[in-house]
């Protein structure tokens, strides 16, 4: 992978141990986040996008086993780091914004207390830390930040709380911000404001963002590079234009066709992807999308497709892309 990547994941495979056997949550996943770029990961529920983000932060639950691969943050493997090394990384060089800001903020501490707590590494006075917190709140669009530092999370609206979570993520000026469905709990008008904010912040702080979403519209609005996950595998990746204007994997095509926002002619009959996501206890031996694929042929059920380069930055894991 490119040397100037802030995050580079190579051949990552992760299993979860369950009473019914191992769940193969991620299989041979490779992607890179170039410095200064926004990379989007899109996939349906159960595709492994949250597992991927937790793995990158070194936050995998106890029943997860890494079966192979590396997660390189600025060249160092997150998977082999000790607690102290991870702690030095998290919050300072990489930070995360979670889906639900009500559960990611501590309900019994004021925003100001939480925002000064996370600056525990800085050798600065409490007043200085508080001023820094207020400045960051102002930057993300919270009015009267000095007064509001004394408020508790429940005194803010949902949109405000997500802005606070983003401000907390940015306090350490991280090189990489991982945002896991940051707007799912918000209304469209707030969603548009948060997306706009993320885009501005990227310009100002010159950081990189790994943006995880199931919403194709948001990915198209915000990202430079798109990774499509299906049932734990990267089925296609490329620049945002390559993916949206020239998808090569039948799953990406189907996903784009299904989005009602892309259908211009009004229709009561909406397209769907028939069938279900495969059970990850028993992953199909050949192509993982074959049971639902409209273009399936005999080879798909027999042989596992490789990653075929189909454009400057685009590759698809499909036999049809090999020609």
């Amino acid at each position, binding site marked *: 992978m490119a040397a100037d990547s802030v995050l580079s994941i190579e051949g990552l495979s992760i299993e979860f141990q369950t009473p019914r056997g191992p769940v193969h949550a991620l299989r041979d996943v490779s992607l890179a986040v170039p410095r200064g770029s926004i990379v989007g990961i899109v996939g*349906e*529920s159960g595709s492994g996008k949250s597992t991927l983000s937790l793995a990158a932060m070194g936050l995998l639950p106890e029943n997860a086993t890494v079966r192979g691969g590396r997660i390189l943050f600025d060249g160092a493997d997150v998977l082999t780091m000790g607690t102290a090394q991870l702690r030095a990384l998290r919050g300072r060089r990489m930070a995360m914004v979670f889906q639900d800001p009500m559960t990611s903020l501590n309900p019994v501490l004021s925003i100001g207390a939480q925002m000064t707590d996370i600056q525990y590494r800085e050798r600065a006075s409490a007043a200085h830390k508080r001023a820094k917190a207020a400045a960051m709140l102002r930057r993300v669009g919270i009015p009267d930040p000095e007064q509001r530092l004394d408020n508790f999370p429940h005194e803010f*609206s*949902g*949109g*405000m709380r997500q802005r606070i979570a983003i401000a907390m993520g940015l306090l350490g000026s991280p090189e990489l911000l991982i945002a896991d469905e940051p707007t799912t709990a918000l*209304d*469209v*008008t*707030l*969603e*548009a*404001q948060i*997306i*706009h904010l993320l885009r501005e912040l990227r310009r100002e702080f010159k950081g990189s963002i790994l943006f995880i979403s*199931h*919403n*194709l*519209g*948001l*990915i*198209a*609005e915000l990202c430079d590079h798109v990774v499509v996950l299906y049932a734990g595998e990267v089925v296609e990746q490329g620049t*945002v*234009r390559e993916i*949206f*204007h020239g998808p090569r994997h039948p799953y990406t095509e*189907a*996903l*784009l066709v*299904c*989005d*009602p*926002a*892309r*259908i211009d002619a*009004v*229709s*009561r*009959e*909406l*397209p*769907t*992807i028939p069938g*279900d996501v495969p059970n990850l206890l028993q992953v199909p031996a050949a192509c993982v999308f074959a049971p639902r694929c409209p273009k399936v042929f005999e080879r798909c059920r027999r042989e596992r497709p490789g990653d075929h380069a189909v454009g400057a930055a685009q590759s698809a894991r499909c036999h049809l892309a090999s020609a």
Partner: protein
Amino acid sequence: MSALLEISNLRVRFALTGPIKARLMGLENRFLDAVLDVSFAVTAGTTFALVGESGSGKSTLGRAIIGLVPTQGGSVRFQGGEPLRQGRAAVTAYRRQVAMMFQDPVASLSPRLTVKSLITEPFVIQGLKRRNLDAEARRLLALVGLPADFVGRYPHQLSGGQARRVGVARALALSPQLIIADEPTAGLDVSVQGEILNLLTRLQRELGLTYVIITHNLAVVRHVSDEMAIMYMGRFLEHGPTQEIFARAAHPYTHGLLAAQPRPDPDKRRDNVELQGEVPSLARRPVGCEFHTRCPRARDLCRAVRPERQTVTPDHSHRCHFPLTAAA
């Protein structure tokens, strides 16, 4: 075609505090108006969409229609009568005709009941115990496209889409005429969302159902509804035929909502955000037009005088002093 459901000047208010505390604290208004002065009619066999942000009162309105929250004025007429004013028996009969599909099906299905118990519970509640519940369960599962062996499953064994289908089956149990669906596709993946909407469309065609769909997803509204209303702080800001509103939105709020929808095309990115800020608190309702605090076109008149309902065409109305349709 006559209207199946007719709502006029409906108002729902919740008390914030008791009268004594309000007096002690010097509160002028101890009530919070969740739904204000709402009127609309739904023709049999059509789909009406209620659109709005969180806190706009759309779910409260849905609940008021079926009598789950008390109303403080206005009327809910169904097939010409006013069942919610006619005592228990009339309300029970009314709830056989009108079914509700709640938000978040996994949370609204009891985790300790099997699918069979869940979808046949309405018969038990209505005292129709002599029906053959096994046969009814099979009929309902077939209707929503689930295999018959699902009768023994529990909610945690269902995927999001399957749970949604069970919710539809439960709503259909008593063969209602009207279904109020609160966010029928929220939280579903796009591929599954299409399946549920297609199911609702098929059932409407086959059974002649009427729907009131409550949602914030405008892309869905455009495809599935005949008429729509945009709610803001309990009021209808715009109301009319869906295609007309999408083509010629009169209210700046409608326009802003439409512009806020993300477009899945990287070449059509938006540089500016039209609607800033958030919905004000219902306890501190702005004077004049409720939307003026966020409106990009607000003028002095908007801050002082509340706009009355005006019509663009006989069935397309809005509440704005300076509608976008006036300039053209």
